[in-house]
């Protein structure tokens, strides 16, 4: 698997969530994801970007365009240096929320992507990586 192209977008405020969403949409179109896959991936990115801004107190989204043989994919990594997630099992439960959301963010985003991984440590931050293949 090789990384064709990559970059980073800041996630500091609400407006950055919109910009991240638009960037993911543009790249999903370039890779020629179908419309449903595009919508799923952009929605997942929106959920995760909001988590980074709201719960992680800001951070960044790193994107990588991938190629593996004939298939292309897009990987997004949302990283913050926020409070971290003390109880992963709970955080991945549908309907559970520490904030004012619906509690669908993490578990919901996981269902919308092909690959999902999360790395978190209390008081150090959280890194969520998602990948979608064409």
């Amino acid at each position, binding site marked *: 698997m090789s990384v064709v192209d990559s970059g980073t977008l800041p996630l500091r405020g609400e407006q950055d969530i919109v910009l991240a*969403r638009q960037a993911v949409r543009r790249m999903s179109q370039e890779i020629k994801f179908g419309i*449903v896959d595009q919508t*799923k991936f952009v929605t997942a990115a929106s959920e995760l970007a909001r988590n980074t801004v709201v719960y992680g107190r800001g951070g960044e989204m790193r994107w990588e365009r991938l190629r593996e043989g004939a298939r292309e994919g897009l990987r997004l990594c949302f990283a913050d240096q926020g409070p971290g997630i003390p109880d992963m099992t709970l955080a991945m439960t549908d309907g559970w929320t520490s904030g004012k959301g619906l509690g669908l963010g993490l578990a919901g985003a996981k269902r919308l992507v092909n690959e999902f991984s999360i790395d978190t440590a209390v008081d150090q931050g959280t890194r969520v990586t998602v990948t979608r293949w064409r």
Partner: protein
Amino acid sequence: MERIPILRMGEFLLVTIQVDLHDQLALTLQDDLTSRIEKTGARGVLIDISALEIIDSFVGRMIADISAMSRILDARTVLVGMQPAVAITLVELGLSLEGVRTALDVERGMRILRTTLDDGAVDERR
């Protein structure tokens, strides 16, 4: 400040969302819409989301809240024009928009609002 326009059509309010909704804009719409319902005595709200390319959990909750708030203010909300890809994604995300009335397009949405009004208001001439 950026705002989403709310049009009045008789006893209905029509909202067409044509921009990428950021969180503050969604919250402003919620405030604007509820105060317009109160001021105009509107009996129905039609929200056209055909131009909306994604609905994440934040916007989904905003829509469900608008529907619940307007119901309490004696107005019905119908959400129209959802793109199929958005519907698929919403359900997978885990958001079923319970309690929100939907229709495929504006025309059908209008019909639903009129029917609801005719059924509900026995002799409530304005």
